[in-house]
């Protein structure tokens, strides 16, 4: 109970892992490309959550171990990952539109032009 009420870094990490798993399940099982892309966003967010949580953890550490108030590398990485997510979404949706125009479908298992 004590550990339930006292929110530590581990809580955030577990939350991140759960999100990651949800994302993985979505990517592996859904047919709709849009939802697959959204699941990828979930995965990226799970990673971000871990990064920010660990960055917070490092801020509490002493400067000697590379921590301290200025140790915001995790947050900076999270920002980079958000940038990546934007790029990924833009390109992914662009591909999706091109694909939809050609095949009139958004199902991943019908993306089989390379499978001969």
């Amino acid at each position, binding site marked *: 109970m004590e550990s339930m*009420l*006292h*929110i530590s*870094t*581990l*809580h955030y*990490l577990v*939350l991140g892992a759960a*999100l*990651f*798993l*949800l*994302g*993985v399940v979505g*990517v*592996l*099982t*859904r*047919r*709709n490309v*849009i*939802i697959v892309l959204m*699941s990828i*966003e*979930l995965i990226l*967010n799970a990673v*971000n*959550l871990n990064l*920010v*949580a660990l960055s*917070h*953890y*490092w*801020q*509490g550490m002493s400067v000697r171990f590379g921590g301290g108030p*200025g140790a*915001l*590398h995790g*947050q*900076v990485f*999270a*920002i*980079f990952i*958000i*940038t*990546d*997510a*934007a*790029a990924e*979404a*833009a*390109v992914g*949706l*662009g*591909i999706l*539109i*091109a694909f939809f125009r050609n095949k*009139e479908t*958004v199902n991943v*298992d019908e993306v089989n032009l390379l499978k001969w």
Partner: protein
Amino acid sequence: MAPVATPFFFYLLAATMIIGGILVITRKNAVHSAMALITALLAQSGIYLMLYAPFVAGVQIILYAGGIMVLFLFVIMLISIERTMKERQFNHQWLIGIVAAAALGGLFIAVYTRGKTLFPEGRLTYAEGQNTQAVADLLYGPHTGMYMFSFEIASLLLLVAIIGAVVMAKKRI
């Protein structure tokens, strides 16, 4: 004084995120999925605020909820979804996928139960006060700006992505 409501808000936001995530991967209608994802993302920005990372939270709201998800909604509306909604929603290897994910989950559980001690609680001494300025120092500071180059690379990546998206979406260039 440690924030009194921390566990409450943590569990509230975490539950929102988890439920949102489940809805994302189970809804038939892509618009509903997108709305669930938006909710999850907003809850996550709340979590960032709890982790004293307000700048990341702001970026999360502006870029994810306000930018990327609008793009998603735009595309969903652009392509007709009626047909997709009537079709099978899960692919043939869904069982294998779930088993693989479950295995990964098992790994996570193992790691987190075994390695719990590796993560003692962080000491929450650092206020949000100068978070933006500190992040900016890491990104652009004259002495501490170790991510300046990466930042430029990221901007290049975005440029490439813009061009790529336009090339993909346009019928004829």
